[in-house]
């Protein structure tokens, strides 16, 4: 019996996705992806534009379902046909743009209160109380940004880096079983990007959270996580575990890419992004 299959936290089975079906713009974004992610995995996914990384994350997050026959199973439950807000019970997500993951017209504490109720019914209890505020302060203090003293500040007045750090706390505060980081530092300046990246790593380690981080940047993909997946044109072409990953270099990745894809790696943004 295959026991590892029972233990996997996320199972994707024959996940296909076609956009604009039946039109001249028809494009297959994913070809029959099979993937198992295990508890405590920190998986980095790398690939050039059009590789299918975002489509994959969107399917895991339930933004849209895969084509008929595909399956998405999280924590043993088949969530394939559940709507996005139900996926949220299991999946926390940080988007590329800080303004997507936070609500600018609400205060920091209101944003965190919304995040705290992930996956729970929202009723007619007051959304904020003293215990909540204490919890929020202790969640924000480790960021070292001073946000814990500004609970009543409108999020729209924060900087991009501060907002993204808040988005990170919001994605993790209710401890979903899976954390998706969707190129979440791509729009930040290098220094802020490094800070947010360190915070991500700190939170993931502390909460032992199963994480999938999508990135354009090979160096990041090598430096973080215990498993590296490379996608190309809707397929997984490289899947490297912890032991092989430690010895891996960017040149190895380029070689692996060229062997697997059977073509030259031309996406400069992937090669040159050595943040």
């Amino acid at each position, binding site marked *: 019996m295959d026991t590892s299959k029972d233990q996997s936290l996320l199972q994707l089975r024959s996940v296909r996705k076609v956009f604009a079906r039946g039109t001249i713009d028809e494009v297959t974004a994913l070809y029959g992806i099979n993937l198992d992610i295990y508890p405590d995995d920190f998986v980095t996914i790398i690939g050039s534009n059009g590789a299918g990384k975002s489509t994959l994350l969107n399917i895991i*997050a339930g933004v849209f379902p895969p084509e008929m026959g595909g399956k998405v199973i999280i924590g043993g439950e088949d969530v394939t046909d559940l*709507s*996005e*807000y*139900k996926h*949220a*019970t299991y999946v926390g*997500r940080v*988007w590329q743009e800080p*303004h*997507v*993951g*936070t*609500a*600018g*017209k*609400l205060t920091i504490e*209101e944003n965190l*209160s*919304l*995040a705290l*109720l*992930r*996956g*729970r019914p*929202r*009723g*007619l*209890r*007051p*959304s*904020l109380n003293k215990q909540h505020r204490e919890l929020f302060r202790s969640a924000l203090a480790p960021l070292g940004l001073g946000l814990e003293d500004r609970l009543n500040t409108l999020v729209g007045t924060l900087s991009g880096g501060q907002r993204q750090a808040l988005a990170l706390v*919001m994605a993790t505060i209710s401890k979903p079983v899976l954390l998706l980081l969707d190129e979440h530092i791509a729009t930040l300046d290098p220094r802020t990007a490094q800070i947010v990246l360190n915070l991500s790593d700190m939170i993931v380690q502390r909460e032992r959270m199963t994480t999938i981080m999508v990135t354009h940047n090979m160096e990041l993909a090598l430096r973080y996580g215990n498993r590296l997946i490379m996608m190309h044109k809707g397929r997984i072409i490289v899947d490297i575990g912890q032991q092989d990953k430690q010895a891996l270099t960017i040149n190895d990745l380029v070689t692996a890419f060229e062997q697997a894809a059977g073509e030259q790696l031309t996406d400069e943004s992937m090669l040159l992004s050595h943040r």
Partner: protein
Amino acid sequence: MLPATIQGILTSSLSDGLIYAFVAVGVFITFRVLAFPDLTVDGSFVTGGSIAAVMIVSGHNSFLATIAAIGGGLACGAVTGLLNTKLRITALLAGILMMVSLYSVNLRIMSGANIPLLRQITIFKSIANFFGTAKSVILVIGILAVLALIVFMILNWFLRTELGLALRASGDNEQMIRGLGSDTDKNTIIGCSLSNGMVALSGALVAQNQGFCDVNMGIGMIVMGLAAVIIGGALFHPRGVASMLLAALGGTFVYRLFITIALRLGLAPGDLKLITAVLVVIALCIPYIQKKARHEWMPPAVKF
């Protein structure tokens, strides 16, 4: 002589301001909280009035009739929300479709275009009877003020609850709140429903106060509500739930003050809707003109 005129202007603005404040609060919920431009208002206002009128004429208690009117408004708004979320019809179109179809529905409810309520026991008369007095402007203002306070307190509480906060987040960042596990379809339906419940309450009160319900009395209600919300926002710069609700109330009063003065200056009542519309146009284009003056760019207005 002069103080009496001013007093007259103030009391009539106050009673009209309070009675239409529920429309402003309704418009505030859809436009400002949900960011859902809902035009159902012109129809649901009359639905509230006609349900109350029909029930009062057929001998029901005026309180019951007013509550039933709120129920009718809640149902209208829920249908608008369903059209938008479950059938993916844009908010503006869903509201227009409802506004038009409610015109027919309202004619059916009233079995005609007009119901007089002059000798009926309205909510105002029954409270006047209870206190053993006749219906007066001061009494009407008192009743409306108590009602407005109750509605204010309920909404101020609701918008701070877990559900109410999720509603506000739906209007601010729908993608985020869905990603945090809140059903945005449900939030939209609840918000639209609540909004039109308030509007229908206003319709029921207006019909009972003026002594008749007319199928055309809702025309331009949405623009009036919008004007009140915009004026309130510009004058009071509200931040936070309570002050935003109060700004909607205050905005309605200031708007009615304009209107009352305009009427006393000799403008025909028929001109009021044009004046209101011009007021809203001016308020809406100010940000663009300001940006233009600073040579800043502003994207074209959305078509849908």
